[in-house]
């Protein structure tokens, strides 16, 4: 059974009512089932609008958004889309609805009207995947920020979507919590879930299959994370990113002739190639 959802955008434009300019101006994108796509963009680039188009919270004012081949504009599609494409927002406090861990995780499946036994099973699976099963009866207020965001993720997993959208989902987490969250996403992606992640941090995208740059409502760059890290430091700064220190280390070592040009911008890659 195919787990991942495929998403297609064709000529998508979106203009908010009474806005002078369209927020999204002609986007074309094909995302295969099971892919991990990172969309980089700063504030005002349209990234949140893009997220909402992908899970049918918004319908394109022009162009088409297809989820598993089905047009989001069709009547009744929006609800079906939301069962397939779910979204995790930036602040866990803005997403958690119940006061007890397992009750919040159950919110999604309860809305789908599944039988109670099925709901209990899904909640167990989702909380276990997120590492929160032991805390299932705990009050939400006793969780740390990182745990709350993992709960929000579990709540989305319990719907068993084919695609998870992450709208800057890690920007409020401390480094330890971010690393745990990335591991969680990676595990789900390996299971076949499509991941579309919007962020402005380069330290969150190294596992992505493809990286796209969204500027002012259009995609201006596309490539693999490696290709992005290969860009020179000031080019990245122009795009409003800080080149990760490890990538800079790789560049400098290549410059000094210590390692060959094709070396990957991660520690294991560099370690292998250092003259020994």
């Amino acid at each position: 059974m195919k787990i991942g959802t495929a998403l297609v955008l064709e000529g998508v434009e979106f203009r908010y009512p009474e806005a002078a300019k369209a927020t999204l101006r002609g986007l074309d994108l094909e995302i295969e089932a099971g892919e991990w796509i990172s969309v980089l963009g700063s504030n005002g680039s349209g990234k949140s609008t893009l997220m909402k188009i992908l899970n049918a919270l918004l319908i394109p004012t022009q162009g088409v958004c297809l989820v598993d081949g089905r047009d989001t504009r069709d009547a009744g599609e929006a609800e079906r889309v939301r069962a397939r494409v779910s979204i995790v927002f930036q602040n866990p406090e803005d997403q958690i609805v119940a006061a007890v861990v397992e009750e919040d995780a159950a919110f999604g499946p309860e809305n789908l009207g599944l039988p109670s036994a099925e709901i209990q099973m899904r909640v167990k699976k989702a909380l276990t995947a997120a590492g929160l099963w032991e805390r299932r009866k705990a009050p939400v207020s006793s969780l740390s920020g990182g745990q709350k965001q993992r709960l929000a993720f579990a709540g989305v997993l319990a719907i068993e979507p084919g695609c998870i959208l992450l709208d800057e989902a890690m920007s409020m987490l401390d480094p330890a919590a971010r690393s745990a969250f990335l591991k969680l996403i990676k595990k789900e992606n390996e299971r076949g879930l499509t991941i579309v992640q919007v962020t402005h941090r380069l330290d969150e995208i190294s596992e992505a299959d493809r990286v796209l740059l969204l500027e002012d409502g259009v995609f201006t760059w596309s490539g693999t994370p490696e290709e992005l890290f290969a860009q020179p430091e000031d080019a990245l700064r122009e795009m409003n990113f800080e080149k990760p220190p490890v990538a800079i280390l790789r560049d400098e070592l290549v410059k000094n002739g210590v390692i060959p040009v094709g070396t990957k911008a991660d520690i294991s890659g560099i370690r292998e190639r250092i003259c020994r």
Partner: protein
Amino acid sequence: MAFMNGVAFGQYIPADSAIHALDPRCKILMTLLTMTSIFICETLSALILWGVLLPATIHMSKVPVRAVLRSAKPVIVLIAFTSLLHLFWTPGHEIFRVAFLSVTDKGCVMAVRMGLRLFYLVLYAGLLTLTTSPSELSDGLEAIMRPFGRIGLPSHEIAMMMTIALRFIPTLFEETDRIIKSQMSRGADFESGGLVRRARSYIPVLIPLFVLVFQRADTLASAMEARCYRGGKGRVRMYPLKWGAGENRALAVLALFIAVIVLAERMNFWI
């Protein structure tokens, strides 16, 4: 300036007792019946009987007595005040006098009766919240209100609002605390000055709080929609409420108890 963190579950104390295990609808109905009966009964002896039922129920619920008594703390002043009003202002045969205040025989009876009634009311209500978690309570209320949906009562929406409100109490406490501290760090003074000045000093706390809450409501609504929420239609609970023999038994026992008291009062059995 002390600003406390809200308690997550209000009064709820989890325990493995017959009372805890009862369906919340049953407990709510029983509490309502009890409270109504207490108010209807006239005789002191009936009230004493109700008083005997209380410790029996507390014992069955395995909740510490101190916790039950603590639920009366916020209203103890009100109860005392009401009793005193009845003590001094009920006409009847005067027993003794304190300055311009006259204590009558009827006054004594009324004071004790009113005081006991209010005391029981609060304690039985406290027992309900001590043995029923907030989510059970909101499920129970929603189920009870559902038949009134036909006359337009939005039972699910009310229950959902209660759930969300309770969930956000600790969060909002923390965030308000942080805003207050931020403004204090910029020299805001919440303690000095008259009532009006002090009220105005809270504007730099209330405005950011409102902004926060409105923005949150927006995102929360999107998050709920994204998790396929579409109101109460077709929703199924993870732990559905079950009404069984235990509930029927509990109701029957209570009904009998009430019947006995009412009958005895009618037959003027006691004072």
